[in-house]
């Protein structure tokens, strides 16, 4: 989740959207107003923020206002959250490499991993 959050914050529009939401919940129309980009583009940015767990959608009749999840943003902001995210990203990449090695080992059961003494 934290990895996604960092990606979410890498874009200036999304940071501006978070800034706006920090002032209170807002609809997509309200959020799109100050920007020169289309409403669907804003919706896409909001989707990234929501998938990263930084904002959520409230269902209010036909309206779908977005709001900040302050605890998620706060966690990201703490230094330990940042540091943790770096490691999380590295270990997820290790998982991918490990799975690939396991696949190779299954295909070529040649030299075993235990070296002969």
């Amino acid at each position, binding site marked *: 989740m934290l990895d996604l959050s*960092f990606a979410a*914050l*890498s874009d200036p529009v999304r*940071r501006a959207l*978070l*800034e706006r939401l*920090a002032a209170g919940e807002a609809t997509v129309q309200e959020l799109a107003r100050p920007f020169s980009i289309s409403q669907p583009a804003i919706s896409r940015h909001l989707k990234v923020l929501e998938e990263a767990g930084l904002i959520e959608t409230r269902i209010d009749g036909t309206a779908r206002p977005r709001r900040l999840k*302050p605890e998620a*943003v*706060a966690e*990201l*902001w703490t*230094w*330990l959250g*940042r*540091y*943790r*995210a*770096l*490691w*999380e*990203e*590295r*270990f997820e*990449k*290790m*998982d*991918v*490499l*490990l799975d690939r*090695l*396991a696949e190779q*080992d299954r295909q070529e059961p040649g030299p075993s*991993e*235990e070296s002969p003494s």
Partner: protein
Amino acid sequence: MTAPSQLQIVQDGDTDIVVRRSFPHPPARVWRVLTDPALIPGWMTSLDPMTRCEIDLRPGGSFYYEWSGADGNAFAFSGPILAVDAPHHLAHVEYFNGDTTTGTTVTTDLRPHPAGTRMTIVMRYASAEARAAAIESGMTDGFDQVYDQLAALLAEP
């Protein structure tokens, strides 16, 4: 989203950071990913890619890792290898950008357990200040700016 591999990062005492993580693979395979210079750049990323990776894996050997970005910024960690007991134990010292006045002693232990491997990394910094600085530098300037903005926002009533 595999719960058993759950990452734990804690500060221990004044100078240590302890990282714990499990992998659903035997220690020998985890060891390979941790120590093979052909594999290390595939995971030991920073915001910039690792562009140089050399490791002479034996007690008395040494390593050199360098990252560099398109903007020309580069940084490196290097240092001596203290102990090697494949595939369970590795100890080395890390110097940042060749500064040997303050080093971090890193011990990595891999223990077999029913689901695979439990890894424990202990990073012992020269001082509490060095530890704080290392954590701070975990992310780079671009992000600091973002966080400063967010911090200001969150501080508002």
